[in-house]
């Protein structure tokens, strides 16, 4: 059974996080966000607040930091609330509308920016059959999917009841996920809490690497024979491998907490 609260966190801090990468890989998204300055805050009861800032083809998403719940992003132009995690998940699925609490005059601008952006994200995360053949599409799709999956991983590990116990077994340290000369994401682990970060950590405790995006894509979509891939050198790991081993059951829980 899916915990709507966990799924809402995955949507808020996992799926929407991938919007940050979108202008980099997608010309249409760059065009949509060009000359835009718009900050929107989502409020989801029992989950959290998330603030999304679109500024001149750059997108940033963050949650509140620390006990005071402060943001580094500017104050929101628009605040959108949901009555429940389920409501927010339905908003992300395009089935319901959020409740605007602030910035009603900017809703038109938001609709013209945010909605087409999420459509572009959906286009990459749910590959249409005719798009698979294009290599540039394929690469962007893999990068964005990896971003969603690894950010979802931290949310699930920190908030899913069944996963919290599994997360406690993950040794402290940083595990780096990388594709040769391409994307880098790492997950910091401290006392059973996980945090996903873009980039390359200077001193990871463990590295899980992929020879190419195709291999990573196979892993993310569940089509890769992992042991064969390691045996044949298409992917590998080094360092304190118990980090990967203890993270495996958490990785298995990602599809359960992502929508269609």
């Amino acid at each position, binding site marked *: 059974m899916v915990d709507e609260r966990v799924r809402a966190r995955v949507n808020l801090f996992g799926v929407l996080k991938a919007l940050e990468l979108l202008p980099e890989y997608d010309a249409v998204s760059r065009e949509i966000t060009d000359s835009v300055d718009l900050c929107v805050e989502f409020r989801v009861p029992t989950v959290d607040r998330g603030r999304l800032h679109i500024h001149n083809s750059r997108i940033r998403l963050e949650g509140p930091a620390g006990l005071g719940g402060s943001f580094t992003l500017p104050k929101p132009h628009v605040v959108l609330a949901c009555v429940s995690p389920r409501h927010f998940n339905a908003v992300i699925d395009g089935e319901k509308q959020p409740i605007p609490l602030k910035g009603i005059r900017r809703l038109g601008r938001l609709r013209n920016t945010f909605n087409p952006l999420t459509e572009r994200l959906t286009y990459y995360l749910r590959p249409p059959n005719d798009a698979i053949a294009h290599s540039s599409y394929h690469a962007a799709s893999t990068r964005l999917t990896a971003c969603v999956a690894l950010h979802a991983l931290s949310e699930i590990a920190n908030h899913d009841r069944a996963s919290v116990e*599994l997360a406690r*077994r993950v040794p402290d*340290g940083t595990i780096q996920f990388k594709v040769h000369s391409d994307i880098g994401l790492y997950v910091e682990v401290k006392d059973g809490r996980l945090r996903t970060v873009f980039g390359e950590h200077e001193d*990871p*405790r*463990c590295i899980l690497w992929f020879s190419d995006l195709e291999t990573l894509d196979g892993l993310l979509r569940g089509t890769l*024979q*992992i*042991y*064969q891939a*390691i*045996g*044949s*050198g298409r992917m*590998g*790991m*080094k*360092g*304190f*491998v*118990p980090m990967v081993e203890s993270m*495996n*059951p958490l990785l298995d829980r990602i599809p359960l907490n992502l929508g269609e």
Partner: protein
Amino acid sequence: MIDNGHHLSTGESRGYEESRALFRRAAQVIPSGIPGHMGPVQAQFIPIDAYPFFAERAHGSYFWDVDGNRFIDYLCAFGPNVLGYNNPVVEEAAERQRRLGDTMALPSRQQVELAELLCDTITAAEWAFFMKNGNDATTLALMVARAATGRKKAVLVRNGYHGVAPWTQHSGRPGVLEEDTANNLYVDWNDYEQLEQLVRDHPNEIAVFMSSPYHHPVFHDNELPAPGYWEKVQELCRRHGIVLAVDDIRAGFRLNMAGSAEYFGFVPDLACYCKAIGNGYNIAALVGSEELRDAASRVFYTGSYWYGAVPMAAAIATINELSRIDGPRLMNEKGRRLTDGLVKAASDWGVTLKVSGIPSMFYLRITDDDSLMMTQEFTAEATQRGAFLVSHHNHFINTSLTEDDIETTVSIAHDAFRVVAQNNPERISTGNGVESRGIL
């Protein structure tokens, strides 16, 4: 077949083409290609291209891969090779029995003689029960403890290893249910107070405390028991009617012929044996106290090949030979000389190598980083030069290891540490590495 009889000089790398070709075939017909602890993933072959995947043959302290590369083997088949591969005494005994019969309609004379030998050899043994693998022995130990006490729970040491049956694993792993481990309780190694608290918290619920005689987890330094630990544990178990089971599958006969418990000064109610008792022939044993004989009789536990007489004949020969040559002392002396050489070789390049555990089952870790990446570089470089080493697991010494093998290995290690030092200038100390080790 090309017999690369000598280790390769610096910079050369071994060809594993045939290993890789066989792996591609294996992947078509065997899940993961090589499942289990010998698979390249679980065996931590890092980087993967430094290691062979398949062996062609073995003799003494060596094995040859399917590409003809020879390795000085410090995994010893993960323990079973204790007298050297193809030891003539063991092979002759096995061959003699093979001509008479192996798996037959009835148990053989060998079964009785092997049980008598184990009872004569191991302090804690007043009976012996035979099976095939270590996991069979630990599972029977759990069943016997439950049958004897009428209790459900087992206390295990965190990060300890007792096999692969679902009860020995963690829930969340594929195929392992929460219910499989629902009766397990865990304590940290060497933490008597934690164990005592657990016993207080679960009165009349704990059937067994199962532990290896010293802590030899993977990926971590091995740890010997603190002074007085086992005496207190034994007394606690006796006082609360908890069966004390020692898992001597890995260390058995590599520390003391009378059992590792004898070495550490305690007497368990049950002791599990496997790896070293048959020198590669497939046999395991659970031995136990008089008090548990009846419970062991009542448990129904068996297997099609558990009565095979050839492995029993091999085990008799192995144990007698180990006793004759004082195998544990020999292996620990060889292990000591080897690890002293390795520590010195590391130190020569400013690398700090920590040796832990017992010398006959040494675990190696470079302490200059906590990720094991430098250790993995070292073991890969050493393996490519002909000394088969891994980064996650303790190693094993066998009695056939020669002084030449030790010298060659230290020379290989010297070359390997040079590469590690060159690759990690920011991590290594400028002074000499500091030796650190376990007992003996």
